[in-house]
């Protein structure tokens, strides 16, 4: 670790903190339908869309109608994307002439982009036509992110309102999130990426003669536009197989900086928007504080473990001061590789600028754990916020009991119904992650896919289901996941992680919205103090992380101790 490295990390977070308030306020106004500087251009578009879709923007929905709209929209999005992939060969804009995508991969990919996961069982530049990338995947990059934001808005309104029957209109929230937030920011970020040297072209590829005189095909395409929304929408699906480690997807230290900033910006600012909309900005900041504390701690551990390096390799004469550089890009270095790994897993982006599977035991444990904690640090756009609200509900329940009062969060009493749905949501994640991992770990055909023997192989499987269930999308390299078993089960894990979590959350929102907001008294436990932030962190670690301890002990933890004692597998 070095001072320069920490300065880089510090500067990055400073930039994000500075962006939170203006962006959060802008979004709060935009979601409320207030006019802003983009309204003259986008206002008519918005109204046109409502007119075309037959949506009455003034008519609000109850939690069930909101949920059903969200599910219907997702189902339609899945069907469309699945069809595009299956018939890719017959569709236009396919300069490389790629064939139709096989059924299991098409299912996996469609679910993956639908759920904002962007797990990629395929290599982008060798599988997907430009049409599939742009009309299929990139569209879902926008709307899956907007769907997450919409659910978060419904949850936010549940706390902002008192005795309300409705949570807003899903179609309006979806449209506004796309038009006023994702689209304009994506344009700006894409242009910045182009300026930093990222390709943006419809040409398929160029052929070059290398110094050795060999012909090499260099894949090109509309990279910058997909990169922008990949980061802003916490999607993570790369244009190239190597994702952000590829020089065309992440050409320089500067583009790396902008990438991380873009990942963190909207999802962090949404937490501020929450505080703004419920009328208690301190609550927003308290959530941000808990998220930032855990995220920065996670990055610190990765940075420390990777800088410390691998004593086995040091023993073989590798330069110890560089730390473990296996699977990392020299142009990013230890600090910004650690920051990228921490942020991309703390958020459900899943883009990578280094290979997590090549990290040391602990260095690889942290990204996995950050996903397992529920993708709330600060998590995917929208999904991170509502995941945090679930943890906050559990935290106030425990805190409320300890101060002798029926627990309440932002003046809403937390009772049996909310606890039931919160526990249901919390239960989905370990059931999917540990369940699928355990089955795969004893299934010879599934174990055959692993790339490394010993505990690292188990880590690969565990990471895959963790990433899928957490809707993250990053992978622990090595695992050949493009098999019918993994494509199908990972697809189901993604669906569970997204919808089996979001539906109970929306049910909580419906129940919370209907409650009267109780004014705070000195007997009410304040939920914006450092004490609460500490409690929230404890609850996230204990309720979100404790159940993974045995699995982690058998994967990365034993790997770390084995590495330190010089044992290999």
């Amino acid at each position, binding site marked *: 670790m070095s001072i320069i490295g920490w300065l880089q990390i510090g500067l990055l977070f400073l930039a994000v903190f500075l962006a939170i308030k203006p962006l959060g306020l802008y979004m709060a106004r935009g979601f409320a339908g207030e006019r802003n500087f983009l309204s003259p251009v986008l206002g008519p578009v918005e109204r046109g869309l409502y007119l075309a879709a037959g949506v009455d923007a003034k008519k609000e929905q109850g939690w069930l109608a909101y949920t059903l709209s969200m599910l219907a929209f997702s189902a339609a999005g899945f069907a469309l994307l699945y069809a595009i992939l299956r018939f890719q060969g017959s569709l236009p804009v396919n300069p490389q002439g790629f064939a139709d995508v096989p059924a299991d991969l098409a299912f996996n990919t469609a679910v993956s982009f639908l759920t904002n996961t962007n797990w990629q069982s395929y290599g982008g530049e060798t599988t997907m036509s430009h049409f599939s990338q742009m009309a299929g995947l990139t569209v879902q990059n926008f709307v899956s992110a907007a769907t997450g934001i919409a659910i978060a808005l419904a949850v936010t309104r549940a706390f902002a309102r*008192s005795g309300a029957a409705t949570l807003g209109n899903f179609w309006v929230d979806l449209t506004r999130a796309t038009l006023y937030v994702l689209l304009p920011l994506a344009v700006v970020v894409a242009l910045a990426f182009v300026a930093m040297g990222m390709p943006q072209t419809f040409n398929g590829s160029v052929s070059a003669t290398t110094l050795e005189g060999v012909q090499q095909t260099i894949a090109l395409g509309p990279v910058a536009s997909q990169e922008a929304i990949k980061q802003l929408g916490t999607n993570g699906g790369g244009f190239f197989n190597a994702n952000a480690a590829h020089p065309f997807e992440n050409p320089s230290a500067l583009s790396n900086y902008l990438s991380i900033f873009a990942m963190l910006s909207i999802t962090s600012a949404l937490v501020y928007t929450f505080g703004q909309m419920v009328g208690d900005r301190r609550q927003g900041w308290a959530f941000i504080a808990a998220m930032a504390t855990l995220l920065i701690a996670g990055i610190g551990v990765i940075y420390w473990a990777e800088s410390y390096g691998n004593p086995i390799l040091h023993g073989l004469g590798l330069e110890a001061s560089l730390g473990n550089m296996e699977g990392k890009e020299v142009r990013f270095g230890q600090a910004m590789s650690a920051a990228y790994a921490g942020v991309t897993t703390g958020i459900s982006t899943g883009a990578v600028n280094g290979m997590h599977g090549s990290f040391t035991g602990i260095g690889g444990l942290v990204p996995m754990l950050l996903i397992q904690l529920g993708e709330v640090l600060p998590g995917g756009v929208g999904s991170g916020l509502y995941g945090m609200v679930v943890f906050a509900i*559990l935290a106030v*329940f*425990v805190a*409320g*009991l*300890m*101060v*002798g*009062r*029926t627990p309440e969060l932002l*003046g809403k009493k937390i*009772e*049996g119904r909310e*606890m*039931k749905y919160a*526990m249901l949501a*919390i*239960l989905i994640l*370990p*059931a999917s992650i*540990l*369940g699928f*991992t*355990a089955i795969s*770990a*004893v299934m010879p055909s599934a174990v055959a896919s692993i790339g490394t023997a010993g*505990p690292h192989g*188990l880590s690969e*499987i*565990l990471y895959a289901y963790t990433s899928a269930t957490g809707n993250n999308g990053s992978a622990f390299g090595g695992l050949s996941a493009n098999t019918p078993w993994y494509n199908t089960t990972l697809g189901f894990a993604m669906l569970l992680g997204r919808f089996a979590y979001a539906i109970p959350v929306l049910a909580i929102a419906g129940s919370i919205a209907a409650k*009267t*907001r*109780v*004014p705070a*008294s*000195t*007997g*009410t*436990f*304040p939920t914006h103090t450092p*004490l609460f932030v500490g*409690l929230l962190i*404890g609850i996230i670690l*204990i*309720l979100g992380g*404790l*159940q*993974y*301890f*045995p*699995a982690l*002990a*058998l994967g990365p*933890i*034993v790997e770390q*101790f*084995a590495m*330190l*004692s010089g044992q290999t597998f």
Partner: protein
Amino acid sequence: MSSKPVAPSLLDPAILLPAFKAAFIKLDPRQLIRNPVIFVTEVVAAMVTVFFIRDLATGTGSPLFTGQIAAWLWFTVLFATFAEAVAEGRGKAQADSLRRTKSELMARKLVSAEGRETQTIAATSLKVGDLVLVEAGELIPGDGDVVEGVASVNESAITGESAPVIRESGGDRSAVTGGTQVLSDWIKVRIGTAPGDTFVDRMIALIEGAQRQKTPNEIALSILLSGLTLVFLVAVVTLWGLAGYSGTVLSVTVLSALLVTLIPTTIGGLLSAIGIAGMDRLVRFNVIATSGRAVEAAGDVDTLLLDKTGTITFGNRMAANFMPVPGVTDAELADAALLASLADETPEGRSIAALATGEFGRQTPAVSLPVSGKQSGREVVALAVGGGSVQSGALAIDAVVPFAAETRLSGVDFAGRRLRKGAVDSILKFAGVRDENVPAEFRRAVDQVARTGGTPLAVADGNRLLGVIHLKDVVKPGIKERFAALRAMGIRTVMVTGDNPVTAAAIASEAGVDDFLAEATPEDKLGYIRKEQQGGRLIAMCGDGTNDAPALAQADVGVAMQTGTQAAREAANMVDLDSSPTKLIEIVEIGKQLLMTRGSLTTFSIANDVAKYFAIIPALFITTYPALAALNIMGLTSPQSAILSAVIFNALIIVALIPLALKGVKYRPVGAAALLRRNLLVYGLGGLILPFAGIKLVDVVVSALNLV
């Protein structure tokens, strides 16, 4: 408060012995399924027992280890059922004595309402509306209202208070309770409740926990605990597969041990004991709640509605100051007021005398009675001079004018002086001072007293105005501090009074209440409660009169006085047997304590898991991955002793925490944040660290005894 609540000793064999037996009866899975965490533990214990028997029969595995794990898993379940049995046992003794009073009750049912002719029937066959006659020495056969007669009644069976109370028809003292004894005279009682649903029946059911239903908060907590149990069930079951990857075969025994140590058995085992103990604590404070829900709601109360009279003030106005007009000394006025009040037997009159002789240091003069002292005030005068022994040189009283409601003044005539004190207008009339001739200073003093919410009395000597006596409602000592404590808990106090707003405001500010409701009618109270509830607040109030009944029913926590009417007692969800209006404050504390105990033990239980992982995980995998020895930070002797120690610790901690569950976590009115910080430190951090030491200690013992 009549009786200081004393908790029965935890080691009382009268409670412990039946509890042992009950603990086994409660193992019935049909009963245990109400408690999912312990039910899972029982299922797992049964499973391990089967494996133990298999190991014994086939001679495979390690039956010694499996047997001990099975035994301790059963102990875990037993300790949980024992905790519940002990909690129930503490109320049982009281319930038994109540039942005895009830069992052989006979009723003398009146044949007609007018006559006194009765027929004797069993109390259990009484119907609502029946009239019964109860005479001295007899037990009242059922709950009801006195319709005729007046009697002194010994209610000690219910209240524990041996001093008899008066029960009479009409008014607020008409309610009688079945099982109480008439000591003198006779009464006719109209039965108000069907047998089986009487106060005593409800009390028995409540104390025994027979009708105990889970309260809303208990349900929410059960969901959390069941959810956690499921989460850890997933973690443990999948561990079998994860271990299979590295070729490790985990036995059902060790997986069961891991599961039971991870699921929140500590709080799961003590949850119902905490609930029962909470009700029991209330009973020991002489409060009967009709449901656990009400006790819990008490902890949530935001606003307390308190009657001014009897709760905040002593109930009658007392003299607080003498304010002489210019030219009259304090001493002169005090003397005059003292003499004029000798013939005033009202509490106000006595308070004037007390103020003059006390704070103002005047002596009660010896007086000689008028010869023709036929006035009823003479006894008072006689009293004032000490039994009427006339001394020489005493003031020769010519005439005594006793206080009367019509004249609203009292006084004495002696040596040509005519001292009077009384209501200002009465005194002005007596002195013959016309409104426009009233001295400005006198007028000012009267206004000043009225403005501060007091009642001004005037003192005159013949036609000369001497000054003003300031009468005021005296706030009970210490009440202000209690309200401050309530405020620290986050509870607003609202004073309800029939006084005018000026008087109410003055008393409110002196007592330190947050708000007041002046000139309040029962409808006003009801309206105020509804308004507060619409704002999402929870209201508690106490009352005793029939006109309080609607408000008591509307309030989230309504506490009726035992001395109150049947209607009030029916409407309320708690009855205070001591009839002490400040009891609400204790009730709130008990409610809070109940939730806090649950919360603290939940935190403790979950925090414990960290240490258990560190004990069991390395033990399970040390043969496959020797590198995992690094996780054995407690340095436990062997894998088997590590697992056994964790299970033993997990079982013993339930027993160790039974006293805490029964007594409850101490509540301090210090504000929510400070309370949380303290409890997090004690039960969160403590729960994290303690098991490391505890498991290590058990391991030392286990390996010293060579148990595995």
